[in-house]
């Protein structure tokens, strides 16, 4: 049976076109620009890379300049320990933060999803309440909490739990704390919506068939919440890898996250091609696994009987 192809009305096209246009103008076009810069060569000019194309050159001139594009910046990156370390540290910090968030948010979301219906919206409201304050202010507040002479160390020492202040501030640990704190709602909400949708009869059916409460969780609740777990993890992991503000404010001088390294190359070293190449690699690093996961999901869904 063939379904006649549905024609979109003018209004529908406009509604669809607006966000796509937005993405083309403010994401794809800058991205293409960065890709181009990553193939250029650093220079003591303004802007600090060569070649730069100009309409005055004419087509032949542009083509001649394009021939000087090259992968030097990428080759330099591969040799640079600083970049490798930055990538690894970023992935590690984002990975650890994501795992901690999952462990905190899952029981939280489960409790919310099983709370009495009239309580749920209140609980969601409380979970996103921090968003009412500026992100920057909240991260700054953590400095006051984590410093050697900060609130946490004062309290622990006053209670005689520790003798000397814990040095948390300006470490990778502080960055993890900051990321977990800032991104937790983005993990919580997809988990909540996946868990809230689950039919309670499925859990009853599992219990009825002899599954203990723990088995009900492992065999039914957890596998059924997988889409929520994946969505939540991607939603926090991807921005956490490229995070700049939190490592800049809470991290120490040895905290080499890729966002900071990029910033340094762009603004301190003025090596735009190297920084652009690093940004492109970061994008590839993040999108690659995403595409693989998506393909695997689609294949699992199409699996013939």
């Amino acid at each position: 049976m063939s379904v006649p192809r549905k024609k979109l009305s003018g209004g529908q096209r406009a509604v669809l076109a607006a966000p796509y246009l937005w993405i083309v103008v403010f994401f794809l076009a800058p991205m293409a620009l960065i890709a181009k810069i990553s193939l250029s060569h650093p220079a003591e000019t303004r802007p600090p890379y060569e070649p730069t194309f100009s309409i005055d050159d004419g087509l032949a001139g542009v083509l001649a300049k394009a021939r000087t594009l090259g992968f030097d910046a990428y080759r330099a990156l591969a040799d640079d320990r600083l970049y490798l370390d930055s990538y690894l540290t970023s992935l590690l910090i984002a990975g650890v933060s994501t795992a901690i968030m999952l462990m905190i948010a899952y029981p939280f979301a489960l409790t919310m999803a099983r709370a009495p219906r009239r309580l749920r919206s209140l609980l969601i409201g409380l979970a996103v309440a921090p968003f009412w304050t500026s992100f920057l202010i909240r991260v700054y507040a953590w400095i006051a909490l984590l410093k050697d002479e900060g609130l946490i160390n004062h309290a622990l020492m006053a209670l005689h739990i520790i003798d000397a202040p814990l040095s948390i501030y300006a470490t990778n640990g502080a960055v993890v704390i900051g990321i977990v704190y800032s991104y937790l709602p983005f993990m919580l909400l997809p988990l909540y919506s996946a868990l809230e949708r689950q039919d309670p009869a499925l859990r009853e059916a599992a219990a009825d068939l002899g599954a203990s409460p723990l088995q009900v969780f492992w065999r039914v609740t957890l596998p059924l919440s997988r889409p929520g777990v994946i969505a939540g993890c991607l939603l926090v992991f991807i921005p956490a890898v490229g995070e700049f503000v939190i490592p800049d404010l809470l991290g120490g001088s040895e905290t080499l996250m890729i966002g900071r390294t990029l910033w340094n190359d762009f603004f301190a070293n003025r090596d735009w091609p190297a920084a652009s190449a690093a940004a492109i690699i970061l994008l590839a690093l993040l999108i690659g696994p995403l595409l693989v996961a998506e393909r695997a999901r689609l294949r699992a869904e199409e699996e013939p009987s």
Partner: protein
Amino acid sequence: MPLLSVEHASKRFGAVVALDDVSLTVDSGEFFALLGPSGCGKTTLMRLVAGFETPDSGRVTLAGQDLAGAPPHRRPVNMMFQSYALFPHLNVFDNIAFGLRRQGASRVAIQSRVAELLDIVQMQNLGARRIEQLSGGQRQRVALARALAPGPSLLLLDEPLAALDRKLREETQFQLKDIQRRLKTSFVIVTHDQDEALALADRIAVMRAGKIEQIGSPPEIYERPASRFVAGFVGATNMIEGFVARDDGGWFVAPFGRLKRADCALRDGARAALSLRPEQIVVARDGEGVPGVVEDIAFRGETTQLRIGVAARQALRVSCTNGNRFSLGEPVRLMIAPDAGVLFAEAE
């Protein structure tokens, strides 16, 4: 000793009394139906047996063992859910094997048991299907197979046929009864559909507002309903309001005439209601009966339903096998035997 015994069970949800001092027993190998309108407590009673609710008072025993405090996963009772509650992340095979795996059955034992159940519900070769690929009827059968797989001594079925269309429902009724008879497992079915209860069950408990109105075999329930509610809920009936006259034997005085009653224990002048099944009234062109006029004829295949006007704004439903002989507006006579129907005192 009965297999299942519920003794004086009561359950309230806030201000709502779901069960009010309910007692019943189900024998081994019996097909038992809990019948009643929605909100009568039948589902609560079933969930009490499965362990999803605890009674406020009273007790539930299975094969002589008190089930108090036993959580659902430790009860040798399985349930087929109204929504089927099939696990969407597992295929047909793994759904059916779920209970067997929890029992710690071996791989080989699971393979053969699942194959056996797929055979019973006529779903051979469909073990690898995903749940979303199944039709409603197939899902229903997987749900049944899954609940039967662990070999429960008692199977609870919550409105098992409600989601099927009518033709499939009738077909499935016979299959369900056949499977029950073959496996000799006790089935307790919850239904609001009186036809289903009458067709399937060995015994029926008719429930209303948290209480059991009557327990009996389908013919008992149909022919000797214990209350006006049961008479009206199970099968079609003509409920005729009137009073009793005790001169010269017993009479029921209806708005359209006096009907002789064979057994009438009520006192003279007592208000009463007579429940007459449509097929207990005999229509004839002439004779001694109550005069009436054919107001409507509905052909139903093997029977014909007639509406006979007998008094101002009162009509009786009559079912007969030869109704085609009559035509609209025709004057007829209704013969009502002295032992037909059931007389209820106006206490309700």
